[in-house]
């Protein structure tokens, strides 16, 4: 299955919505850089993320959360926090990576 990455804020770009439209059940989505703003509880995108969590794995890159002062307690339940080493493992364990720029 594909690893999808999203590195743009959902408030500024449409990348997350497009990613979620095309990502198949069983695939993985990694939120990084400004993409991590979609992982926060209480935004307008939370329902979209929660729907995705029903049949996809969602990850968020912890160093990007920390850099932006976002405490990990504010992350939507079900999203897995990862570090750079995990990022490499995710890339290696999927058939290909699709970056939603």
């Amino acid at each position, binding site marked *: *299955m*594909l690893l999808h990455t999203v590195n743009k804020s959902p408030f500024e770009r*449409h*990348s997350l919505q*497009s990613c979620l*439209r*095309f*990502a*198949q059940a069983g*695939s993985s989505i990694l939120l990084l850089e400004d993409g991590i703003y979609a992982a926060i509880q209480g935004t307008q995108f939370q329902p979209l993320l929660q729907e995705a969590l029903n049949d996809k794995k969602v990850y968020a890159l912890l160093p990007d959360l920390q850099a932006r002062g976002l405490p990990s307690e504010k992350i939507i339940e079900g999203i897995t926090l990862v570090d750079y080493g995990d990022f490499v493992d995710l890339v290696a364990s999927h*058939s*290909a*990576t*699709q*970056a*939603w*720029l």
Partner: protein
Amino acid sequence: MSDEDMMDDEAGGGVVKKFLYVNRKAPYGTIYALESLEVVLIGAAFDQDVSLAFIDDGVYQLTKGQQTDGIGMKNFSPTYRALEMYDVEKLYVDQDSLTARGLNAEDLIVPVEVLNTTQMAELMETQDVVFSF
């Protein structure tokens, strides 16, 4: 894939991988569309199984009637018609992206296959390598 792998494949006449180029940006406003086209042409030289997908504002790359004289940039839209000569013949366009922009396949400068969301998702999952622009 490393350069060395590429050389080996070429020398052995060997492994053909499925390459998908996903285009999601309008032309001229940013350099993404032109850069994608450049990479497609380079990739075509390695005899790989190449497909192009146009999603979101990427569909604007293919619209007819582009005239760039006034902005001092090269109109690269005719290049999409030349891709056939490089054996790049699989161009796929997202139906919803066209519809959202009031476009249909007749508005595009080159014949394409229009796919629904499910078909496009399946196309993506079958690839060995995805290049995103």
